[in-house]
Structures are given as structure tokens and as C-alpha cells.
């Protein structure tokens, strides 16, 4: 199964890989200009290390038949849930959040790895024989499958990742062909639970939402990050300030400039033109991903491609939206760009899934 068929290689999606390579390269360059904390310039190297590991994972995943992976989805899902639960027992706490587990010299973030498990599990449910045609029964089955990890991730607390599961799930339901009326009702019910959700949020999370609605509320806290990010992005103007001139970024304004706010650094350095290049890479990624989904001839491949593409696309949209001040700060990394091994690994594995679907679409 692992041995790669020559015919499969003919269907490799080169534009997709090219866009990915471009993004990883931009990530490493941007990180190398930052002098982050005590880690120093090592961040860029480590990011490349993770990317290399990720490419390996990408190749392995791409060589596997995605249909077999979906068949094994319940096992992956349970494993992923185990990881999420383990965080509470073994987790390493960083600034108040328990999101990481140490595995030897590496730290992994189970909530990142779980994203893919979740996509596979959702596809498994939607394409199971008993759920055909996908409708009420699939949704009923899906609710606990989505709710349990959602609560676990919110408790870490990692609100951003938890919220991300919602649009991904919606995209999969839509793609599976569930009647839109049913989805509308579901969405209405979801909105109804918002007040309850508000109660569950931690104070600082509520504060972030309030600050988004009213930035003057806390000029020293969350709003500070957003204001400074806007100044950084805007001051990049059309062509950017170049590496040496990006004072706003090098003179730290945000504690998370190498992770969640890396887009601001990039935008200041390379300007609007640079941003266009970056967004074009992402756009290419999405268009190819959706194309794979659209041209897949059977639902498993279509939904896998759709789920993975949605996963990455929503992260990009939310992250850039939040850094540019269009959305509240929820703490979602920019896939392939933000510093973080687990995120990089998962993004590349997801792309591996896409390739797997593409290569087997004519089988």
C-alpha cells in the first residue's frame, strides 16, 4: 500500500505543493528576522525542522489510501480524545493554558492534532451506510462527537481551536448534501445557546470579546495588541519597510508576534504587495483544495478534501481577520506561517490527505 504507484505520481498536485513550499519559506524568513524572547533566532530553524518532519508526514499520508484512513477514523478519533484528556493530567501549562504535552524533547499540542482526527471522524459518520442519505440521524450522531472535544478544548482553555470546529463541521454537513433547511434550524438552535456559552467563558475571554466590541475598554490589554498590529500592518504601506525597517515588529509590540500575530510582522516588512503574494499562495491552496473536493467522484474523497481545505481556510480567514482588526482576538495560529510544531505538522498532514485524494481520483 505504501509503495507508490507510478500512475499515482502523475496526479500529484504540483501547484498545491508549490504554494505550500512558498508559505513555509515565508514563515521561516519572517521568523528569522524576529528576535523572540530567549529562544533567539533558533525559532526559524526549529520551524524548518518541524516543516521537514511535516513533509515526511505529508509523504506518508499521501501514499496511504484516504479511504482506509477514514475507515479507521473512530480509532483516530478516540486516540485524539485521549490526547485531549491527557492534557489535563500531564499537560504543561503556559500562561494559564494547559495545551501542551511533553513527548521526550518535543512538546505537542493535542488540540492541533485532534483537528484532523475530527475531520476524518465527521466524514466517517456522514458516509456511513446507516446515515444515507445524510440527514437527521447523522446530525444526532455528530452532536456528541463534536461536543465532547469542544468542551475539552474550551476547558484547556483554547477557545479559538474549539470555535474552529464549528465552521469545519458546518462545511462538511453542507458538502455532504444535508438539506439547507435542516442546517438553518441547527444554526438557529446554536445561536440560542450563545447566552449559556457566555457563562462558561473565562473572564479574560469575555474581556477579549468586549474589547473587540469596544476597544477603548482596555487600552493596555487585548486592545493594545490589536491597535499595535494595525499600526504595524498599516505602516508597511504599499511596498513594506524591508527587514531592517520594520521597527514596529522588531521593537516588540506584542508578546505573540511569532505565533498568532505573525501576519502583522509580515505585512509591515513586505507591505501590501507582499501581503498579496502571501494571500495568493493561500488562495491557490484553497482553490486547489476545493477543486480536489469538487472533482472527486465519490463522497468520502470529496468530504475529506472539503474538511481539510475548510480547516486551513477558516484558520487563515479568522487569523488574518483578527490581526487586521476585523474579528475578535481568539488565538488561532496562521497555518504554515505561525511558529508552532504541532500546527505545522497538522497542516502538512492535511495537505497530504488532499494529495491522497487527488492522486486516487481516477481509480
Amino acid at each position, binding site marked *: 500500500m505504501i509503495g507508490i504507484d507510478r500512475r499515482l505520481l502523475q496526479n500529484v498536485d504540483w501547484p498545491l505543493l508549490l504554494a505550500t513550499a512558498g508559505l513555509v519559506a515565508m514563515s521561516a524568513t519572517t521568523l528569522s528576522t524576529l528576535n523572540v524572547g530567549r529562544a533567539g533566532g533558533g525559532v526559524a530553524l526549529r520551524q524548518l525542522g518541524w516543516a521537514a518532519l511535516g513533509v515526511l508526514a505529508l509523504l506518508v499520508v499521501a501514499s496511504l489510501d484516504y479511504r482506509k484512513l477514514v475507515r479507521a477514523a473512530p480509532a483516530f478519533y478516540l486516540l485524539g480524545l485521549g490526547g485531549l484528556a491527557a492534557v489535563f493530567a500531564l499537560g504543561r501549562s503556559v500562561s494559564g493554558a494547559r495545551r501542551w504535552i511533553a513527548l521526550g524533547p518535543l512538546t505537542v499540542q493535542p488540540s492541533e492534532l485532534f483537528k484532523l482526527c475530527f475531520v476524518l471522524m465527521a466524514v466517517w459518520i456522514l458516509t456511513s451506510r446507516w446515515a444515507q442519505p445524510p440527514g437527521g440521524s447523522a446530525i444526532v450522531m455528530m452532536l456528541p462527537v463534536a461536543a465532547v472535544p469542544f468542551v475539552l478544548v474550551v476547558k484547556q482553555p483554547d477557545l479559538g481551536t474549539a470555535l474552529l470546529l464549528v465552521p469545519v463541521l458546518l462545511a462538511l454537513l453542507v458538502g455532504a448534501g444535508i438539506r439547507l433547511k435542516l442546517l438553518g434550524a441547527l444554526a438557529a438552535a446554536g445561536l440560542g445557546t450563545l447566552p449559556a456559552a457566555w457563562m462558561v467563558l473565562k473572564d479574560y475571554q469575555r474581556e477579549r470579546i468586549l474589547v473587540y466590541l469596544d476597544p477603548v475598554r482596555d*487600552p493596555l490589554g487585548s486592545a493594545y495588541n490589536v491597535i499595535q498590529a494595525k*499600526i504595524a500592518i498599516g505602516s508597511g504601506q504599499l511596498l513594506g519597510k524591508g527587514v531592517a525597517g520594520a521597527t514596529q515588529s522588531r521593537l516588540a509590540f506584542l508578546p505573540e508576534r511569532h505565533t498568532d500575530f505573525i501576519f502583522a510582522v509580515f505585512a509591515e516588512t513586505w507591505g501590501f504587495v507582499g501581503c498579496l503574494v502571501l494571500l495568493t499562495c493561500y488562495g491557490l491552496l484553497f482553490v486547489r483544495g476545493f477543486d480536489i473536493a469538487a472533482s472527486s467522484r465519490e463522497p468520502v474523497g470529496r468530504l475529506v478534501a472539503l474538511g481539510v481545505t475548510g480547516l486551513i481556510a477558516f484558520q487563515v480567514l479568522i487569523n488574518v481577520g483578527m490581526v487586521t482588526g476585523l474579528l475578535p482576538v481568539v488565538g488561532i495560529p496562521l497555518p504554515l506561517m505561525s511558529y508552532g510544531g504541532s500546527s505545522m505538522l497538522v497542516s502538512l498532514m492535511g495537505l497530504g490527505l488532499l494529495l491522497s485524494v487527488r492522486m486516487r481520483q481516477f481509480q
Partner: protein
Amino acid sequence: MALVALNRGPVPGRRDPGKQRVVGMTVGVLAAFVVLVGQLWYLQVLEGARLQELSDKNRIRVRPVAAPRGVLFDRNGLPLVDNRPAFTLSLIPREIDDREKVLGRLSVLLKISYAELDDALGRVAADSLMPVRVRRGLTLEEVARVEEWKLELPGVIVEVEPQRAYPSSRFAAHLLGYVREASDDQLKQGRYRRGDMVGQSGLERVLDEHLRGRDGGERIEVDALGRSIRVMQAAEPNPGAQVVTTIDRRVQETAERAMEGKAGAVVVMDPRSGDVLALVSTPAYEIDRFTGTIDRAAWLRVVQDPDRPLLNRVIQGQYPPGSVFKVVVTAAGLQEGSLAPMDRVHCGGAFTLGDHTFHDWKKEGHGTVDLHRAIVHSCDVFFYQAGLKVGGTTIARYAQAFGLGRATGIDLSGEKIGLIPEPRAGRRGRRAFLAGDVANMAIGQGALLVTPLQVARAMAAVANGGVLWKPRLVQRVERPERGVIWSDPGRVMGHVELSPMVWAVLRQGLWGVVNEGGTGTAARIPGLDVAGKTGTAQTVANSKSEKGQDHAWFAAYAPAPNPEVVVVVFVERGGHGGAAAAPIARQILNAIFFEKVAMAGFTGS
């Protein structure tokens, strides 16, 4: 896995709705992308020049304005702790051009070690805009020196911030607790910002959430000389809530004065409500220094002090209760019928059980005593035998009913629970609980451990007929604009069920201790009916202490017919309870009942 339906290809000739939907979503995502590009166009091209300007001379200063912490009041409205303005020296890392030079100058100017300054700066990013506080409580002279050299010290600022002020240096240190900058561990919890003042012990810690208020802040644009040009944004600080405690400041001060120079604890409690009127643990640490700047050496001196000034002996000190425990044995024996008021025992100064001799504290003995005289004179021989009659299990049960060896639930952190030995612990290889252990337990020795607060609560139960209160420290928390936001109505944690006859015998005995020439005579006050029980707890020999080895206890209530206060005094290695502790209780009771002008409003409640 056969559940998975694979290879369900599209039906030829029909439009594929799934495909259409994917196309729809693609369009949606791309549309969102266009919005993002639009926002970037707006920020980078339309607004670019303005934001560029902001970034160029982004000499925007962030000035946190600390919210004053809430004030703690005593029950009569006197402040226990207040705020006063103090000068704080801060560094703005981003504005320091030459770190070595600036820190070097500052270190010479203010005689702060270079390492300390360097250390403070090292904890934050080298280009942070937020001021880092390096020293609080500068003197006026120091402020003048910094201002004089201002131009040579870019990035150095002096801010005015509220700081805790106490009536005296060690006032109610364990009760109030000290306030310090959030530690690294606390910062990791994510609830605090660097430099936040956080209550670290006592009420300041328990009530921190209420007391801290909400810091305000300003973003100001400054010129190259650090002069502010305009305030861009400002948020007013919101002061912390006020707390009305149950403490009576004058009682607290009297008790502290009475304990001066001794190690120990005092609890004054209202048996009618569980209100704690005074809570004293000595030696106390200098709370004002702990809250302000304290250098490492001074800190270590306190932490390593063999007298353990940081220990709150009222709730964390665990000691054998000594003869105070005879109250429990008497209650158990009378209630269970194994003792009777007319029981008589001849005390010749010692009691032999098997091959072991148990001595009375009075070598020559008390002669023939009945129960009442045994309590009054604290006759050990009587109680050795009483204990054997009542039995270890029963004694332990009653001790627990009186709340000994159980957490009182007081609103302070770090309370210890003490220990009531389980008489059945002989099984599983451990030493059996022998008759000798029961005899020892009956006079409050052996493995028994209680805290002074537990003793106070138990004595309050004797005074009020068996109600076991949760000691109350906080009456209410209030905000000027919102009124009372939290209040403690008081809580009963249990009842000691004894027949009226038993209560009567107990109270007569305790009255006799003080008023019939008993061991507590030193607490006698003409014109006031004081009742109480002395205790002298033997301790493990400690050759360093030349004074008496024994811990002194005195637990009292007054006025006996209708008790309004319970006073428990504990003096560590003070000697005999009647000699070392009872006079202190007398002093406190005297102040409460006969300096009424000062105590206005207290007994009238």
C-alpha cells in the same frame, strides 16, 4: 467497518448537488478573502501614511494607573488598612537607549544594586513599552535626585501609586496578610499582569478578587524628552471594594500589646455569632516592609527566623491542648453516664497503671477531690481515672463534636486541622492504643493536637450552649456605587448535644477555676464573672529554651451568666497556663469590659 459505504459514484446524467455546494463554498471563501484584501488596502494604502507616521514616532507611552486596593474596616468603621500615595520607580525598556549606562547611573544614584535593576529588566522583552516597576516607596529625596538627572536617564520614570498603609508596623500581620507583586507562578495562571499587586496571605489573599479593583490606564503620546503631548486614550481606574470585617481594632490592638515579647496566639470571639473580634499571632512580621520593598536578605531573615514569624499560630499552630481538654472529657463522661458529679478520687500526686506511674502536676497531690474540685484545680489524677472510665473512643468522639481536630472553615488559607488520635489505630502493625494512652489523652497530652482557633470555637460552644460556629471574619463587601455585593450571614457548623445538667456542671466548674481559688485565679476581675480553663501542655524537650518547656493555655468566656466574648490565649513555651496565659486574658477582658468608652458600640450589639 462495512458500515462505510464506499464508491458511491455520482449518478450519470444527473446534476451533482454536492459539487455545486463545494463550488458555492469556494466562492464564499474567496469572497471573504476579498474582504481581507480590502481591509489590507484600507490599512496599508488608504490609512498607510497616517499609521506610518504613528509608527515612526511611536513614542507612545503606556501608563498604567493602578486602582487603589479596597480598604478593610473593623466592626466599628475604623480602618485596619488604608492606602497612601507612594512613589514608584519604573523603567520603560523600549526607551532605554544604552542599558548599561542608564542602569549604571541609576544604581549609583539610588544605591540599588545593578544586578537587581538588570534582573527586573531581564524579565520582560527588551523592547516592551510597558513600564517595569523596579522599586516602590521611594523617598522624596530619591525622587528629587532622579528628576534632577532626568535627561541622562532616558526610559526612567517616577510614578505615583497607592500603597498599603497600616496603623503600625506589625499590626494584625497574620490577619491582614501582605500584598506583593504577582510572583512568576501567579503570572502563569494568567489572571494577573506583571507588576500587579496581589494579596499573598491572610484576608488580602482571600479577598483579593474583591479588593484589587480594576487598573486604569492611559496611552499618551510623548515627545523626545518624554513630555506628554496628548492623551490618546484613558480609562479611569476602578477602586477595589471595601470590606467590613468582624474585627474590633481596639481589642486587636490590646491583645497585640498584651502578647508583646511572647510567642503565641490570641483569639477573641463572640460566642453568640462566631464573630472573630481579634486574631493575634506572635511574633508577627513587619507587614509594612513585606508590602513595600524588602531586600532579599531581610526576607530571608524573616523566612529563616527560628521563631517562625510567618506562621499564623491561630490557625496553623498545632499544639496539645493540655488540661483545657478536661472540659471535653468531663462533657463526655457526664453525658454518657460514666462520670457523676459526686465521684470522688483521692489524689496523692500520682496514679499508677500497670508498671507506669502518671504524675499530677502538683507533686503533693490535691487530696480527695470531687469532679467540681478536679476541674477547679485541674487535678490530673482524677482525670487519668476519668479518662479510663469514659474510654478513648468516646473521648475522641466528643472532641470531634466540639470541633477539635476539624477545620473550622475560617476564611483564611492554610488552616491546619490538628489531630484527634483514633483509639483503634492499633491494628495493622501499629502500636496499639493502650490504657496509658487514654489516661494521657484525658489530660490533653499525647498525640492530641489542636489549633488555638479550634479551642476558641469549642469554648464558644460551652459558652453558648453547644452551637459550633464557623468563625466569621468578614461581615460584608461593599462598593460605594453598588452597595453590598457579598455578605456572610454566619454559619452554624454543628451542635454539641449535652443535657442541661451537664452544661451546668461544666459552667460551674469553669467559673470556679477563676473565682474559687482555682488554677485560673490570675484572670479574676472584680465586677466581672469570668469563667475559664487553664492548660499546661508538655512539649518535647528542647534544650535551647531555658524558660519553661511547657505551652501555656487559657480559654475563657465572660460574663459567665450570659457570655459575650470568648478569649483564648496561648503562649508558646510560656510555662504554666495559670501563670503565663491567664493574666493576658485578664488584660484583654479588662479592656473589653472596663474601657467601654473606647469600645463604644461593642457591647450594645
